[in-house]
C-alpha cells in the first residue's frame, strides 16, 4: 500500500509550507539592496557558505549558544530541532531502503510504519533503523517534556520569565506538542497490531495499547498524527516557528556580510522573522525587573515589528543597553532595528540648532579633553581627570570647559538623524580647532559617538584607557591601598565599545577588584537605568533599575563601586544603597603617588570618602 487519504492533511500542509516559504524567501532576497545582492553572488561559492552550513548545524540544530546559557534549555531546544531533523533523515533512509531506492512521495517516510507491515525488504537493517527511529523519537519526547516543564517552572531551565504568546503561536505550539505523542501513539498501534515496533514503540504497543488496539483506533491515531502535522505546517509561516526556515537564511546572509543599514530593509524583515521568541531576551532586559508589566522586551518588540507596529511604549521604553542583543541566540541586530524604528518621526530638524555657533580660537593642546554634558553634572570626575593629566604633565586643553554642546548621541538614539548629525558637525569643529592630536573623553556616550560616527582623523580614547596608557608608560604611578572595588561596566563602554579590560586593569593598580557574576564581562554587565536612549521611563522606574543593578553587582566585601561613566555614577547614586559610587578617575587620583618625592609617612592610605583627601602635592596640582 502506498497511499491512504489520512496523509492528505500532512501533504497539504507540507506543500503549503514549502510553497509559501519559497515565495517569501524569493521576495526577501529579491528586495535586498543591490549591494547586498552583490555580496550574496560573490560569496555563494566561497568558504563562507561552508561556514554558514556549519553554523546552521551548530546553532539551528544543536543550539550551541543556548547550551552555553543553560544545559537543560539547550537540550530542550537541541532535542526538538536535532531530534526531529534526525527522524526525518533516518526515516527517509529507511523508506528509501525499503523501496530499494525508488523515489517515494513525501508523506511516505513520515508514515512509514503505517505503510510498512511487511518487513522483508529491510532485512537486517530493520533493527538498526528501528532502534534509531525510536531513539530519536524518545529524544524529541524528552525535549517536549522539558518544554512542558519550562511553561510551568521556567526557573529549572534557567529562565525567570517565559514569553507570553499570542494566539497563532499558541495554536502552532499546541499542534507541535501533539505531533510526537501522536506519532508515538500511532506507531504504538502499528506495533501492537503488526509487530513493527522497536524498543519504544513496541513497549508502547505491547504494554500499554495491546488491550485496546483495534484497526479503527489505529487508523484514527494516524489521522490525528497527520492532522497535527498539517496544522503545524500551515500555522508555521504565521507563527514564531517561521524562525526555523528564516534563521537558516539569516545565517547565510550574515556570513556573506549582509548587515542592518541606517534604515529598515529587506534584511530587517529577515531578522525580525528569525526571532523565535524564545524569551532569553526577556530575562536579559533591565525593564523586566520593574514591577509594571510591559512588553518592551525585544521578543515582543520584534513580534510587533513583524505583525504590525510596535507601540509607543515598546518603542520608547527601551534603554538601548544592548543586553538583549548580547544574549540573543540568533544574533539579531536588535539595537540597530530599534534605533531605526525610532526614525519614523523626525521631531527635530538640523535647522533647530542654528543658534549654535562653532567656537573659534579654542585653546590649543596636544590632548583635547571633552567632559560632555553629563560630565558637567559630575565636576568631581572632571577635576580628578584633569588632576591626573597635570600630574602626568599632559599638554591638554579642556575644550568644553565653558559648557558642552551635546555630542548628538541622545538625538541619534532617539532616531533624530538630521538633528544629531548637525550637532556632530559643530563639535567636530570644536575638537579640530583645538589642534589636538588625541581626543579623550570621560563620557562613554560621547566617546562612542566620537569613535563610531565622527570622522576626526585623530585617535579617540575613553579616559580610563588614556589613564591606563599614562600608567603603562610610567607617567603616573599608583599605590595599591587594597580598597575593595566593584566595577560597574557602562553599557556604552562595555557592549558599545568593547572597553572591558582596560578599566579593570587600571583599578587593579589602585585596589582589589571584587568579582560578582553580574559584572563579569560584556554579556552580563547590567544597565544603570540612566540611559539617554530612553525618554519615557519615570524617575522611579529608573531608580528601581539602578537598585536592581547595584544589588546585582554588590557583594558584602565591597567598599566602593567604581564606574567609568558620569551618567552611571549619577544614576547609581540615586539608589537607596549606602555605598559610595566613584568614577574611575576619582579612584585613581586617590591612589596616585605624586610625581614629586613624597616622604614615606604621608603615603599612608586614607579611607576613601566623599570628600576625598589628597596628599598636599596632589592638592597643589588640583588647585593650580
Amino acid at each position, binding site marked *: 500500500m502506498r497511499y491512504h487519504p489520512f496523509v492528505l492533511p500532512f501533504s497539504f500542509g507540507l506543500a503549503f509550507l514549502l510553497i509559501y516559504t519559497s515565495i517569501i524567501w524569493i521576495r526577501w532576497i529579491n528586495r535586498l539592496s543591490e549591494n547586498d545582492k552583490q555580496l550574496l553572488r560573490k560569496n555563494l561559492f566561497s568558504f563562507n557558505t561552508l561556514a554558514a552550513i556549519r553554523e546552521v548545524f551548530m546553532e539551528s540544530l544543536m543550539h550551541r549558544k543556548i547550551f552555553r546559557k543553560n544545559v537543560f534549555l539547550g537540550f530542550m531546544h537541541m532535542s526538538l530541532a536535532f531530534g526531529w531533523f534526525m527522524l526525518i533523515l533516518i526515516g527517509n533512509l529507511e523508506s528509501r531502503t525499503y523501496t530499494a531506492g525508488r523515489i517515494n512521495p513525501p508523506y511516505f517516510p513520515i508514515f512509514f510504519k503505517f505503510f510498512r507491515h511487511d518487513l522483508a525488504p529491510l532485512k537486517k537493517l530493520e533493527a538498526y533503523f528501528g532502534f534509531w527511529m525510536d531513539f530519536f523519537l524518545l529524544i524529541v519526547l524528552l525535549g517536549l517534556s522539558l518544554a512542558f516543564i519550562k511553561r510551568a517552572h521556567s526557573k529549572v531551565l534557567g529562565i525567570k520569565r517565559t514569553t507570553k504568546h499570542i494566539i497563532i503561536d499558541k495554536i502552532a505550539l499546541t499542534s507541535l506538542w501533539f505531533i510526537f505523542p501522536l506519532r508515538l501513539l500511532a506507531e504504538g498501534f502499528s506495533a501492537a497490531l503488526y509487530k513493527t515496533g522497536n524498543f519504544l514503540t513496541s513497549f508502547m504497543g505491547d504494554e500499554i495499547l495491546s488491550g485496546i488496539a483495534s484497526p479503527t483506533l489505529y487508523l484514527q491515531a494516524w489521522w490525528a498524527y497527520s492532522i497535527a502535522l498539517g496544522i503545524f505546517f500551515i500555522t508555521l509561516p504565521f507563527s514564531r516557528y517561521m524562525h526555523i526556515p528564516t534563521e537558516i537564511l539569516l545565517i547565510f546572509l550574515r556570513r556573506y556580510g549582509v548587515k542592518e543599514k541606517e534604515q529598515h530593509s529587506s534584511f530587517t524583515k529577515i531578522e525580525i522573522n528569525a526571532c523565535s521568541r524564545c524569551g532569553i531576551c526577556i530575562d536579559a532586559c533591565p525593564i523586566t525587573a520593574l514591577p509594571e508589566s510591559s512588553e518592551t522586551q525585544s521578543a515582543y518588540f520584534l513580534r510587533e515589528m513583524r505583525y504590525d507596529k510596535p507601540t509607543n511604549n515598546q518603542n520608547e521604553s527601551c534603554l538601548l543597553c544592548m543586553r538583549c542583543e548580547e544574549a540573543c541566540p540568533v544574533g539579531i541586530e536588535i539595537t540597530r532595528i530599534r534605533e531605526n524604528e525610532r526614525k519614523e*518621526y523626525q*521631531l527635530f530638524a538640523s535647522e*533647530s540648532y542654528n543658534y549654535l555657533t562653532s567656537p573659534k580660537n579654542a585653546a590649543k593642546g596636544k590632548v583635547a579633553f571633552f567632559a560632555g554634558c*553629563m560630565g558637567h553634572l559630575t565636576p568631581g570626575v572632571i577635576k580628578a581627570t584633569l588632576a591626573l593629566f597635570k600630574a602626568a604633565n599632559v599638554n591638554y586643553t579642556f575644550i568644553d570647559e565653558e559648557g558642552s554642546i*551635546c555630542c548628538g548621541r541622545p538625538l541619534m538614539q532617539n532616531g533624530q538623524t538630521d538633528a544629531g548629525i548637525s550637532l556632530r558637525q559643530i563639535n567636530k569643529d570644536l575638537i579640530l580647532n583645538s589642534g589636538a592630536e588625541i581626543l579623550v573623553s570621560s563620557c562613554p556616550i560621547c566617546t562612542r559617538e566620537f569613535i563610531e560616527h565622527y570622522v576626526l582623523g585623530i585617535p579617540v580614547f575613553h579616559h580610563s584607557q588614556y589613564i591606563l596608557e599614562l600608567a603603562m608608560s610610567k607617567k603616573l604611578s599608583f599605590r595599591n591601598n587594597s580598597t575593595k572595588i566593584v566595577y560597574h561596566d557602562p553599557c556604552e563602554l562595555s557592549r558599545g565599545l568593547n572597553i572591558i579590560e582596560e578599566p579593570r586593569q587600571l583599578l587593579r593598580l589602585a585596589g582589589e577588584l571584587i568579582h560578582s557574576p553580574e559584572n563579569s564581562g560584556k554579556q552580563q554587565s547590567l544597565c544603570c537605568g540612566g540611559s539617554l536612549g530612553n*525618554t*519615557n521611563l*519615570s524617575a522611579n522606574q529608573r531608580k528601581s533599575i539602578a537598585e536592581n543593578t547595584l544589588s546585582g553587582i554588590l557583594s558584602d566585601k565591597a567598599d566602593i563601586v567604581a564606574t567609568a561613566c558620569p551618567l552611571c555614577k*549619577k544614576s547609581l547614586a540615586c539608589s537607596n544603597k549606602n555605598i559610595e559610587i566613584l568614577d574611575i578617575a576619582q579612584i585613581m587620583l586617590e591612589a596616585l603617588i605624586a610625581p614629586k618625592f613624597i616622604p614615606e609617612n604621608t603615603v599612608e592610605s586614607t579611607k576613601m570618602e566623599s570628600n576625598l583627601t589628597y596628599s598636599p602635592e596632589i592638592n597643589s596640582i588640583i588647585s593650580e
Partner: protein
Amino acid sequence: MKDFGFSPMKNKVLNFDELNHDFHQWIAIQDSSFNLCIACGTCASTCSAGSYTHFSFRELCKDIRWGNAEKAMKESEKCMLCGKCSIACPRNINTRNIIKMVRKAAKTSPL
C-alpha cells in the same frame, strides 16, 4: 475714522476662562510628571541649549500651562535632548519625554 493721535492699548490681562487647556491636559496625560513642576528653574539653568539661546524648560511648562501651545512647540525645537535637565530636576519630571511629546504634537497634531 478719526485720528486722535492715540489709540487704546492691548489688554495684557490673561483671561484664564478663555485659555485653551486642551494641550496642557493632553501633555499631562502623556506624562504624569508634568504637573509636578515647582518652577524652580534648575532645568533652565543647567540647559545646554540655554547657554546659547533663549530656551527654558520652565518657560516651556508655563507656555503649555497657559495654553500657548504654538510657542511651546516652536521653543521645544531648540532642545538637544542631552538630558541634563532630567538629571537635575528635583521633582523628577521627565523633561525629555515632555519635550518629545510637544514635538510629536507639533508634527502630528493629536488634538
